[in-house]
């Protein structure tokens, strides 16, 4: 990376937004041994829960996603992040299913996380900041379990998610198998690869090196580490796209010039990345980014089960739908195949497709008719089997 984004004078995150949330005073015991109490889970729901409470579908969001899956985002005003998939008549049909999406533990859209307030040992009320404990994907799932039980749902018809959302789907199926009738881990993996950890570390290093980060205590003067967080987003964004997608969208085109002048030329792809970085800092918290990327890096399902991935799913009655995209190099098909083979070894009921797309990892969020047909068909089949 040779280019930093233009210096920004973002004084603070956007004005506080009220999120729908539920607080559990008893809190949550984490994998690291700490207990967070109370713990708050912010969430959104779409559609109607049926009388038998059997039509609930939980959507798990990715690293920088949130609970606003199928409605305009309260800060950016942009459409929900998965409106292509979730909504009336969509593959996850909100006319039929009761859809729940919760902001992950450690997130920054209303669930307990580094930006939320806590009372420290000295009795002072301040944001958690970097004192927020280390969390795991399984901790996120345990927080969602509190919410699902609070909503009075004994069993989820399906748990669906892509990328880090897919990791949560796998943890749901392994940790609470009796509560998961069907599971759809998409564009994901059973562990975070060394390459993915490396990319995350570049992002974290960018945040750490921003003077405005101030060891994580940036709330004290209200200046957020916008430059560091923006660079982290730019790096990550490259990993979400494919080489073909970047070539198709931008090629070597310049902004405002038809040929190189060697005078402050800006390639369109640079301009695009800067835009991605600068809009991201308006809605996301740097300490949350550090916390959640770490949780992804820690993720290793086989290690959680004595080195045997199939043991995570032994005896499972859950039906699985695994999907990957052939141009995704962040969570390549080979990773999904490892999962599928472990599920086969556990004699699980599993469907698996690799979707042809040149859009890279982001393909799971975009208009991919084959993927939508397969996911929708899987869900209809599961609903039929569940007697819906």
């Amino acid at each position: 990376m040779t280019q930093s984004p233009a210096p920004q004078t973002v004084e603070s995150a956007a004005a506080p937004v009220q999120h729908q949330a539920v607080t559990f005073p008893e809190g949550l015991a984490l994998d690291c041994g700490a207990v967070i109490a109370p713990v708050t889970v912010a969430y959104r729901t779409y559609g109607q829960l049926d009388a038998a409470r059997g039509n609930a579908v939980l959507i798990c969001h990715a690293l920088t996603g949130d609970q606003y899956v199928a409605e305009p985002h309260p800060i950016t005003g942009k459409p929900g992040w998965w409106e292509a998939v979730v909504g009336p008549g969509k593959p996850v049909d909100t006319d039929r299913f009761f859809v729940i999406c919760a902001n992950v533990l450690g997130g920054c859209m209303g669930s307990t996380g580094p930006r939320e307030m806590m009372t420290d040992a000295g009795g002072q009320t301040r944001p958690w900041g970097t004192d927020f404990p280390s969390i795991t994907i399984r901790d996120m799932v345990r927080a969602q379990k509190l919410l699902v039980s609070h909503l009075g749902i004994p069993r989820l018809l399906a748990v669906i998610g892509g990328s880090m959302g897919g990791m949560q789907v796998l943890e749901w199926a392994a940790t609470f198998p009796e509560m998961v009738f069907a599971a759809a881990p998409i564009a994901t993996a059973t562990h975070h690869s060394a390459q993915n950890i490396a990319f995350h570390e570049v992002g974290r290093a960018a945040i750490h090196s921003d003077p405005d980060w101030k060891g994580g205590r940036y709330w004290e003067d209200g200046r957020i580490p916008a430059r560091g967080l923006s660079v982290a987003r730019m790096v990550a964004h490259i990993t979400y796209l494919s080489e073909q997608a970047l070539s198709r969208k931008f090629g070597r085109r310049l902004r405002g010039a038809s040929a190189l002048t060697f005078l402050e030329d800006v390639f369109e792809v640079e301009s695009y990345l800067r835009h991605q970085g600068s809009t991201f800092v308006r809605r996301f918290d740097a300490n949350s980014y550090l916390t959640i990327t770490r949780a992804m890096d820690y993720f290793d399902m086989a290690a959680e089960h004595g080195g045997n991935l199939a043991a995570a799913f032994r005896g499972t009655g859950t039906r699985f739908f695994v999907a990957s995209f052939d141009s995704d190099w962040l969570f390549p098909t080979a990773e999904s195949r490892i999962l599928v083979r472990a599920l086969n070894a556990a004699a699980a009921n599993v469907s698996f497709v690799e979707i042809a797309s040149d859009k890279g990892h982001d393909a799971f969020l975009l208009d991919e008719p084959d993927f939508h047909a397969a996911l929708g068909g899987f869900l209809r089949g599961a609903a039929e089997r569940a007697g819906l």
Partner: protein
Amino acid sequence: MPVPDPSTPIRYVAKNMRLDLRLIAEMIPPGARVLDIGCGDGALLEHLTREKGADARGIEIDMAQATAAVAQGLAVIHGDADNDLAFYPDGAFDYVVLSRTIHAVEKPREVLRQMLRIGRHAIVSFPNFGHWEVRMKLLLTGRMPMTETWGRPWHETPNIHPCTLLDFFDLCAMDGYTVERWLAVDERGLKAPWERSIRLANLFGEQALFQLRRAG
């Protein structure tokens, strides 16, 4: 645009697939656990699930077919007989079906061994290379026979391991499999009346259908 992978074999596409599958479906009792290798768009899986209450799953090498099957709510994975069977546990299925595919796999003997490891019974169908028309064409023209069943020239066929009924009986004997049932059928999937004589069936049967189990 993604370029088609030239290493992906062209699947042998059977004519009158449904009749062939009907014969196979008749061999499978209700409620069985079934794996259909090379399941195509899942016609057999659909039938076994709906009509027989089977727990039916599939493997399909062609991505478009696999996606179509999954979109119907069927438990199908994209994969192939040569590489994916090893990952299933012993005795996971009552029946493992390989319909008109064994002559197109890399290692037929190993595939058969895996089928009878993960399943109690194997059902295998294949086009019979011992059919009189094939024999006659080779004898009279001196060229690789091309018939309705063997419809591609030798340099384009995915059917790399053709065999005859007699060859298949020999393989079963060599590897210790018991032939529980066998049928020779014509191209339309109708049973042919040569069941008394394997030699006549090997001459007149266009398709062969076997049900096997491990001996002992």
